[in-house]
């Protein structure tokens, strides 16, 4: 893309999210969400093939409808309370409608249908922005307004997200769809802990963004988008294959890695509040996620598929793609667990 246009688009993306995150008036927050959506469309359509067009159209339709629903919720709130502040949305109709609109923007069940299709239709880098940066603005609004919403709706959506994220990803071979279902599942975890301890939502968001960025950057480095290309990664970049294995295990929430930290703290928080069945269901359903990560690890690092001998000895070219922050992100996504006591810094 033209560098001037790309810099303008990325600046607008940054500005939209920051405007939403820093606002206390609902209108400014809504304007930031609109700016985010409008400037995401050219990013999704970086390559002009029919799949990108279809993905951009589906993204546009769902997000525009969610924006309109959010504005209706704000207008109903204005009608009943006369003020536009985000933290005091006391009318139940307005706050639940806004909750549903924000859940559509985040891609959590039962409004999740656009996430796998849109992530599949675009390249890896726009998909990465879609699954990480676009979660910041709606979650910042949810963090502020969730106290007045019906918590049953949040639990229902969260549990449904974890179930759908687990079962939906089982039948996939395309990596972008697997990461989309992983995103749905993680959004479920983030939503459920919101009524109990919103700080853990932000912690889960931070660690999820680190993990997803690492995985997308590793995949973008070797241009792998499907499971069959994963099987050839050991030959081209053996170190990155091992890092992919460690980061995928961390994404599934395996103990000595840093993906375990949010899940552990969340289950601790839920059991402190005397809810046993819900964290049990959540933890067991996340094992479905772990299954398809293990399948990816099996095909990329643990086995070598049958091939001829000269395919096993390729020229080791020097890497010309920029891997700017990748080593830092990989370390952060695998080795943060001993720093768990520092979470008190987040309060």
């Amino acid at each position: 893309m033209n560098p001037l246009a790309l810099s303008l688009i990325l600046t607008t993306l940054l500005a939209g999210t920051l405007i939403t995150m820093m606002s206390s008036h609902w209108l400014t927050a809504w304007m930031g969400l609109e700016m985010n959506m409008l400037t995401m469309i050219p990013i999704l359509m970086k390559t002009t093939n029919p799949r990108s067009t279809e993905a951009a159209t589906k993204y546009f339709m769902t997000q525009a409808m969610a924006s309109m629903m959010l504005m209706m919720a704000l207008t109903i709130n204005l009608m009943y309370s006369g003020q536009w502040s985000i933290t005091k949305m006391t009318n139940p109709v307005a706050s639940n409608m806004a909750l549903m609109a924000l859940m559509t923007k985040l891609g959590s069940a039962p409004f999740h249908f656009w996430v796998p299709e849109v992530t599949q239709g675009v390249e890896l880098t726009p998909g990465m922005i879609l699954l990480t940066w676009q979660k910041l603005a709606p979650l910042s609004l949810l963090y502020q307004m969730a106290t007045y919403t019906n918590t049953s709706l949040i639990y229902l959506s969260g549990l449904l997200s974890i179930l759908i994220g687990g079962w939906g990803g089982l039948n996939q071979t395309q990596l972008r769809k697997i990461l989309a279902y992983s995103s749905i599942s993680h959004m479920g975890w983030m939503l459920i802990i919101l009524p109990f301890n919103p700080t853990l939502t932000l912690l889960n968001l931070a660690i999820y963004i680190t993990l997803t960025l690492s995985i997308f950057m590793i995949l973008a480095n070797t241009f792998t988008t499907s499971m069959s290309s994963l099987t050839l990664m050991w030959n081209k970049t053996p170190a990155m294959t091992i890092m992919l294995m460690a980061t995928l295990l961390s994404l599934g929430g395996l103990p000595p890695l840093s993906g375990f930290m949010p899940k552990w703290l969340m289950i601790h928080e839920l059991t402190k509040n005397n809810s046993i069945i819900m964290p049990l269901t959540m933890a067991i359903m996340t094992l479905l996620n772990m299954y398809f990560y293990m399948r990816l690890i099996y095909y990329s690092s643990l086995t070598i598929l049958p091939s001829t001998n000269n395919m096993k000895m390729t020229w080791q070219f020097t890497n010309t793609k920029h891997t700017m922050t990748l080593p830092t992100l990989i370390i952060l996504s695998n080795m943060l667990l001993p720093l768990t006591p520092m979470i008190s810094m987040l309060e």
Partner: protein
Amino acid sequence: MPYIYMNIMLAFVISLVGTLMYRSHLMSSLLCLEGMMLSLFTLNALLSLNMNFTLSTTVPLILLVFAACEAAVGLALLVMISNTYGLDYVQNLNLLQC
């Protein structure tokens, strides 16, 4: 609640259902998006005038500006789809399933 607000909220709900349930053309869904915007504009203008929210009288105009930008982007996407398929039938958008 006064009858006029309920009327406009009903218009919003009908447009919302129209966005979600359309037969074949994507254009009808975009039109219903604009219908939602129109009902929101009217509701906001009426609220600002009836309840004397003097500082919120610019809100309908701001909504209109953003909805116009959205409509432009939606139409641009419609044109891109028509480029590939010749029509804007929604059944054509089936490349990304499964």
